[in-house]
């Protein structure tokens, strides 16, 4: 739930005085896309992404208005983003997800005071979601649409129990103003029968085709 336990602590960082070539080499060697820029004591100064690097070098390649080399950035400090959006170890993963979506960035350095202690990327969040919802796991997804009534959810769980379905995960989300959508992952080869039995019990189980709108 909290950012602290989930963040990457073994960090690859760079100083403000490093050249763009050094930064590019680091990104490639470690297969990452963001480099926090720090100074003495891991104090966070800014962040530089591979997009920033690309923009800086491409811009230089096609030259400025005068066609010359003047003004072309040479160090990381010149191209880094200084106003970094950060998290704290006590923040939750919801916070991380909301910030990443809201701010449209790819990585969030985690700080204590102004000291860098970790980093959380979009990829990390995705893998946390995938693993906690067992998306990559064995099983088939069934979607059931229910009226917005908790008693119906209890009834669904009861029916799945009676059918002895091997349920791997169950996610309930609001759908429209007065329905729920329940996403059930079941580990059974005979999904067709299961769907049939759910429909017999009065549940709305749309076919996949109906969602492709």
């Amino acid at each position: 739930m909290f950012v602290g336990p989930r963040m990457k602590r073994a960090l690859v960082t760079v100083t403000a005085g490093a050249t763009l070539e050094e930064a590019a080499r680091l990104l490639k060697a470690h297969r990452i896309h963001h480099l926090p820029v720090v100074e003495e004591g891991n104090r966070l100064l800014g962040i530089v992404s591979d997009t920033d690097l690309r923009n800086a070098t491409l811009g230089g390649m096609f030259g400025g208005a005068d066609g010359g080399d003047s003004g072309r950035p040479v160090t990381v400090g010149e191209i880094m983003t200084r106003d970094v959006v950060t998290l704290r170890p006590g923040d939750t993963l919801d916070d991380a997800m909301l910030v990443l979506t809201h701010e449209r960035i790819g990585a969030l350095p985690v700080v204590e005071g102004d000291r860098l202690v970790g980093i959380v990327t979009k990829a990390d969040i995705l893998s946390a979601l995938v693993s906690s919802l067992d998306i990559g796991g064995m099983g088939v997804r069934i979607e059931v649409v229910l009226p917005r009534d908790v008693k119906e959810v209890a009834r669904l769980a009861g029916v799945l129990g009676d059918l002895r379905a091997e349920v791997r995960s169950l996610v309930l989300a609001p759908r429209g103003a007065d329905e729920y959508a329940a996403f059930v992952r079941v580990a059974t080869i005979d999904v067709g029968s299961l769907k049939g039995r759910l429909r017999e019990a009065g549940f709305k189980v749309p076919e996949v085709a109906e969602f492709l709108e």
Partner: protein
Amino acid sequence: MMFDTTRTTGGFGDPLPESGILEGFDRLIAANRLFGAELNPTVIKKSGKGAPFLVCPHPSRSRMLDLWHDLFANRVPPHGFLDALAPEVLGLAHVEGLLLFGKDRVLYDCQIARGDEAVGHLTLCFYREREPVFRFLPFPRRPGRRIVYIEGISLTAQSTGYASSLFRRYERLFHDLGFHRFRLKASLSVGKYYWAKEGFDCEDREQFAGMRESLHALVRRLGLPVEEQEIRRLNHASMVAAFRRDLPIPVYRNAEGYYAVERDASHAEEFRFPLGKAFLLCSAPWDGFKVIYTDTPRRTGYVGSDRYLDHGTRPGHVESPKRLEALFAAIREGGMGESLILLEPYVPAMESLRAVHDPAYLEAFREAVDRGDRQFAVRDCSISKGTYAAALLAAGGVMAGIDAVFSDRADNVFCAVRPPGHHAGRASAMGFCFLNNVAAGAHYARSAYGVGRIYILDWDVHHGNGTQALFEEDPLTFFCSLHEHPSFCYPGTGRRLEKGTGAGRGATLNIPLPPHAGDTEMIEAFERDVVPSIEAFRPELILLSAGFDAHRDDPIAELECTEDAYVHMTRRVLELADRHCEGRVVSVLEGGYRMESLVSSAIAHIRTLQGREVPPCSSARG
């Protein structure tokens, strides 16, 4: 009736007729106990009965009457005043008490005696500050706060506890008379307190010149923005002393909250305080750590009404009338009603409410109550026949509080209201809230009193989502909320990244605290984030959404604070309010669902608002 409102405050009732006051003057003049006073142009002598003023013939009766009216509103007769100032305490009495009328102040001068033996003397000074009408222009001026200070006191009998006992009585007396400040101006080695020497030990002209020179040197050394002119104007030792005492100088604080006069490796954080206070902070025996509060209790207003009990909720619902019943009873039984200024809430004009809420929403709310529905909008918002009226009166209660602080009837106010308000949005009821009381108060302050910057601090354990949404785009209304983290606590909003939108970006501050956080975390977050934001915002009014459900005994959420956190935050808010908005704070009850902790926390909060029974503490950690 909740309180006996026929009882007048502290024995001083309606103003007396002028003839009575004039008669009182005549009586005292005949008994040689009333004279005039003018400032002594020569320097004073330390020993003997020296005073910084000379006794002279009294001014005209009409001048004296004007002064008496200005200072005491004619609520006390002259000899009654002399009697009140001279209680016998610990076997010591006042003799030869005189009333002296200066140009703009009244002095009380007496000898202190044990039986026949003279053991000391006391001089008090009563005056009224004159504050500029427009902040940046020195003139015109209007009457401001009433101040009483100790011009001089000496006692040969030390450590008897006399001064403390006497001052304790004086605090009550001056408070009842409507005085705002009771200050120690002179140097004292009386009692337990050691104060900066104020320069009354000044024997001759040469020494006086030395005092001025040392003040010059101090100003030069610290590079303070003081003009030559300002120092040259000080032509009396007491004036030099007063100037020195109030001169703001830089002091430096270290991480533990200790102060030093010089900056060094550990004392790095700079603060500016008047020199008198800086001296106290930096020197033993207080370990540079403690601040002594000499102000009299503040005049705290209190809004409450039995009509709030008419808002009924279903059986078992935690937001029940019993919460306020218990609080009202505790205030009554604790005798606090006598020291609070009771204010009546009123039903606000519909326009005032429409400034906050959608008219259709207000209609729907009223209709639901009239129809006899058991809930409005959501299950949490349980209602009864009396709900609509109570909700209107709650919003009106905050407005009554605002009226009181802006008409100088009170310095600060606590509104014991229900239903609470901070979850209510423009057209939405939720979380036990229907009308947003604090928002209504803020809008009212703006439209009725032209208030500009308003700071709303919400320390209820739940995020004040309604208030935040209402002022999200408003750069003039700063909204700050301390609450349990939204991932774990209703209503699931109030993340740090929510900082306001559009023109209001940067005028919203959310401070989520993890579950099981307590006083330490709350106070740390408060000092680190809230205090600087109030300083930077420079509000003209501070509103508190004071819920007490972050208490560890409150079952509704998982924070574990105690009364200490509320006392600390209240005290600091008052300090900041003193600096920026003349102490104007209106505090409004929100949540708090365990009777005992709600009552004890609210009472601790109100006592702190009053400035009573508050032990000395540092600013870093109470």
